[in-house]
């Protein structure tokens, strides 16, 4: 009975709300209510997976791989906001991973800044760098933007390699453990939960953005900058905004990677890493939140699974990626969603 009471109250409220809205009997508005409730629905399967997976894991190794999937899912999601939604390419996003990673490495060791604070400062530093670099770079379009961001990523990797006093140079440096409330974060299972929850938080924020005035403006810019401008959208400002947000996502993933591994080298911000992030976005599905995770899963899990092919590992991986792109042109999640009559992903 006491269990039912809140339900009853909810129904009553619902009825009152419906009655209040009854004045405008627009079908459109009713449909919108449905959509509003659906804003976060694409996360339901992901939440289910997060909860079920540990039941299937038989060793720490599985936790570690899954943690890495969520970690790269965060980075890919950030890049997807830029590429898939706003339509702006970046081939240098690993640079932001590097900033996040070195922040949690250098902050505590060189300046005595607590790891958690270093983590936040790293995200803020990435935002600042994205803001400063984005202004001139985002005026460029398509291939020119691609090459400019590529240059930015390479530049950062060189800085991390050359500033050996701070970064340990090409050999890298150790990263102090993250301690939360006197509790050192250790062990693959702990990181699994941290990263899964972080990904979900990131996904909720991304979905919020996509369904907001700013998000609509960004998606409009993707399709027609001219029409967007004529409707009063400040295209340069919106692009810069999403570049900064995207950088923060990627930077946070970089910080997590450094903390998870306990060691970093400049490779974290290398060109190959940037390409890998782009591949995750395109493979999983441009403009798909769930696709970012699926793309990350493919590129994290496949190389592990393919080790049995020995020296042909990379050949097989390359073939699979090519095959996916040929047969699922829109990326895995949007293509499958379309094939099974689903709506948005």
């Amino acid at each position: 009975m006491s269990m039912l009471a809140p339900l009853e109250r909810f129904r009553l409220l619902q009825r009152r709300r419906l009655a209040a809205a009854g004045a405008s009997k627009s079908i459109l508005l009713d449909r919108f209510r449905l959509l509003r409730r659906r804003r976060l629905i694409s996360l339901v399967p992901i939440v289910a997976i997060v909860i079920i997976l540990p039941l299937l894991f038989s060793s720490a190794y599985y936790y570690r791989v899954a943690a890495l999937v969520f970690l790269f899912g965060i980075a890919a999601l950030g890049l997807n906001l830029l590429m898939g939604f706003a339509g702006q390419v970046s081939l240098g996003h690993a640079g932001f991973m590097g900033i996040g990673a070195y922040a949690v490495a250098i902050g505590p060791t060189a300046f005595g800044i607590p790891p958690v604070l270093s983590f936040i400062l790293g995200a803020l530093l990435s935002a600042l760098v994205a803001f400063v670099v984005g202004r001139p770079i985002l005026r460029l379009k398509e291939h020119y933007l691609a090459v400019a961001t590529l240059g930015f990523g390479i530049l950062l990797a060189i800085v991390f390699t050359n500033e050996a006093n701070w970064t340990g140079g090409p050999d890298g440096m150790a990263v102090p453990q993250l301690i939360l409330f006197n509790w050192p974060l250790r062990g693959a299972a702990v990181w699994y939960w941290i990263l899964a929850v972080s990904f979900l938080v990131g996904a909720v924020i991304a979905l919020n953005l996509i369904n907001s005035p700013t998000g609509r403006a960004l998606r409009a810019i993707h399709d027609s900058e001219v029409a967007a401008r004529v409707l009063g959208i400040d295209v340069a400002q919106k692009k810069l905004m999403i570049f900064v947000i995207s950088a923060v996502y990627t930077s946070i993933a970089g910080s997590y990677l450094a903390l998870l591994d306990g060691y970093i080298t400049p490779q974290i911000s290398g060109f190959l890493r940037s390409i890998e992030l782009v591949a995750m976005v395109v493979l999983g599905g441009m403009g798909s939140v769930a696709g970012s995770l699926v793309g990350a899963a493919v590129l994290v899990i496949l190389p592990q699974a393919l080790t049995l092919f020995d020296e042909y590992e990379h050949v097989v991986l390359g073939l699979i990626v090519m095959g996916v792109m040929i047969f699922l042109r829109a990326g895995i999640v949007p293509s499958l969603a379309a094939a099974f009559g689903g709506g948005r992903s």
Partner: protein
Amino acid sequence: MSALSAERLSVAFGGVRAVDGVSFDVAAGIVFSIIGPNGAGKTTLFNLISGLCRSHDGGVWLCGEDVTALAPEDLARRGLSRTFQNLQIFSHLTVIENVMVGRHRHEATGILADLLHLPAVARQNRGTRKAAAEALGRVGLGDAAERSASGLAYGHLKRLEIARALASEPKVLLLDEPAAGCNPVETREIEAIIRGIVADGVTVVLVEHDMRLVMNVSDRIHVLANGRTLAEGTAVEIRTNAAVIEAYLGVRGAREAAGAVG
């Protein structure tokens, strides 16, 4: 006070004088049409007015305010809106989302509110959607609201652009060939839509090749040829103007245009 004034607008592309010293005044609340052969410079003139293209000379005034050097987004915020001859649809968005983007200048949530989906954003979204649904209804696309914009037929996309521009609640609306590719029935519907827009007090500047439509709805007509002004006047004055008949209408066109009123 005139809603829109253009003075000596001029621009050249690689030696071609696309628009060459064009001036006109559009009184508030009327339909002002710009006609002329293909390549006459009509679309370029719209680009100059809406800030997508810079004039070498002269200037533009919107409701008395000098808006000559303003960017398109700033002009939009001052109440100028337009559609495009070669459609500029947001094809990844649904039909209603396209129109919701038209509400952008009336939306006032911050980025943090947007990221956190604060109640203000939900409220904003609801208001925007309601206004967009109304605009869609005005162009007869209410039933297509939740469809993907990329799935609409050409004629409907033209109307979608009108709804999107209307949603921004412009003072002055530039329509670039809204009836192109439309059958006679659809053209009649476009005519009704234009009349409805003007009835709401919006000033309409229309570029259109369908002479029946132009002659029916226009309060004034401005004729361009090779980037220059050929004539300006009322419908009757224009369809009986010898220079206009020779350069653009032709004898048959003039007769057709005359038939429009009857």
